[in-house]
């Protein structure tokens, strides 16, 4: 997640490997010549669950649905907002939504307010 509220990874200019979360070195070839990679805002679900028992930070949100989504070449996990478990399938399409920059700044220490999430699209 960068300052403009976009989900990012990095791409290695030497060997073209892509990685997320962003890091200062290519894990495949150790090159430090990396460029930002903006992840697509749409993707598909590869795995999912619905959490009923959480830690204190997320306990007020239960139950909540989570998934790993494939966004282009990269997979990321996240909460699926506005969905019930019965609506999800492996292969379901999602789009990524991100929190407004101002909202992010005001609650940077609030662990239960993720910076991005998924929504099912038909």
């Amino acid at each position: 997640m960068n300052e403009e509220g976009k989900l990012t990874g990095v791409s290695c200019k030497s060997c073209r490997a892509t990685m997320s979360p962003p890091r200062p070195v290519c894990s495949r070839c150790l090159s430090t010549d990396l460029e930002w990679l903006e992840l697509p805002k749409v993707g598909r679900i590869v795995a999912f669950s619905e959490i009923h028992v959480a830690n204190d930070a997320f306990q007020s949100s239960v139950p909540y649905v989570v998934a790993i989504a494939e966004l282009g070449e990269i997979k990321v996990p996240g909460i699926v907002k506005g969905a019930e478990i019965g609506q999800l399938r492996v292969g379901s399409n999602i789009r990524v939504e991100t929190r407004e920059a101002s909202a992010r700044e005001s609650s940077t220490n609030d662990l239960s307010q993720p910076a991005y999430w998924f929504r099912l699209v038909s």
Partner: protein
Amino acid sequence: MRKLAAVASVGMSKIGKRTELNGRELIVEAFLEAWRECRNIDRREIGAIYVGSQSETYEHQIMYGSIVADWLGLLPKGSVRVEGCAAAGALALRLGVIDVLSGLNDVVLVCGLEKMSLRTTSQVTDALMAASDLALEQYNGLTFPSIYAMMATAHMAKYGSREEDLADVAVKNHKNAYHNPKAHLQKLISRDEVLRSKVVAWPLKLYDSSPISDGAAVAIITRPELAKKYSASPTYVIGMGHKGDTIGLYERDDVCWPSAVSEACREAYSMAGIEADDVSLAEVHDAFTINEILNCEAAGFARRGEGHVLLREGQTEIGGKVAVNPSGGLKARGHPVGATGLCQLYELHNQLLGKSGQRQVPGARFGLAINEGGSNSIVATHIISN
């Protein structure tokens, strides 16, 4: 076959909610059992102490090795705490084997413990989340049950496994634990009870999940040529593996293939000069029921994608092709996280010596232990022989 090290003796506390004992007292309980099984041994011969423990969150106590050395009268011998989340126990064993194999010491003590029941379920959930990726998993509220649950939904979609298969892992392991007097959950359950139990992270329910346990386990490890001096009935470590994978489940090409488990099993088989088919006894990391199915595939007991088929055929029962988790596994024996790898050794050692009573696996020559930390992120395997 080369013997890497000998297991002179083992000890394990009763696993469960041990409200009356703290972590160090649990280690004493386990140690005294192991000590009674040894002979011709002077405590001054124990050259080093390796202690697996997952988290200081539970008791606010690190430096457990120092306490163990003091309480058991082993000072001034040195110790080290071994961390690898739930793999800590097997990693402590591994370091102990490497120590005597190197010739540095003749005898070492390896231990594992966790005292978890002081904390609420929410606190334990949080302590375990520290073994997942902070940036994307913890900040998005992913609990460990949900990470294993995602392996399950991916496996179900790809290979046709079902919630009933997951439930049947729990039913089998409770049946085994019913005959294990040290098990945390010594009771029989039915498939319906599992399916109707409270959802933790769908499709995983309460009875798909290992309990929050207190417990400790230890082993006294020596060089193979000294085994008969210290023990009337030693077993031997003849192979071991140690492999890794990404901390985040999402970073993997296939989220329902535990590649580090597969690699660590292959490494151990190769070192021992055996194959998966030679293994008729295994203790695997069923922290959640789906993972027993995945471990069976990665160990080569079933083809990739067919772990649930092996289960349906009854081949993982005691008396089947390979008895998986005859102790009851993490699921029913219990899962005191840092101790678990050594609880697995405790079962294999006793099974291979024919000391397991009503849950005895007949005729086993080799036992495989798979212990892992994170979501199959750090894996240590051992092959034990009699």
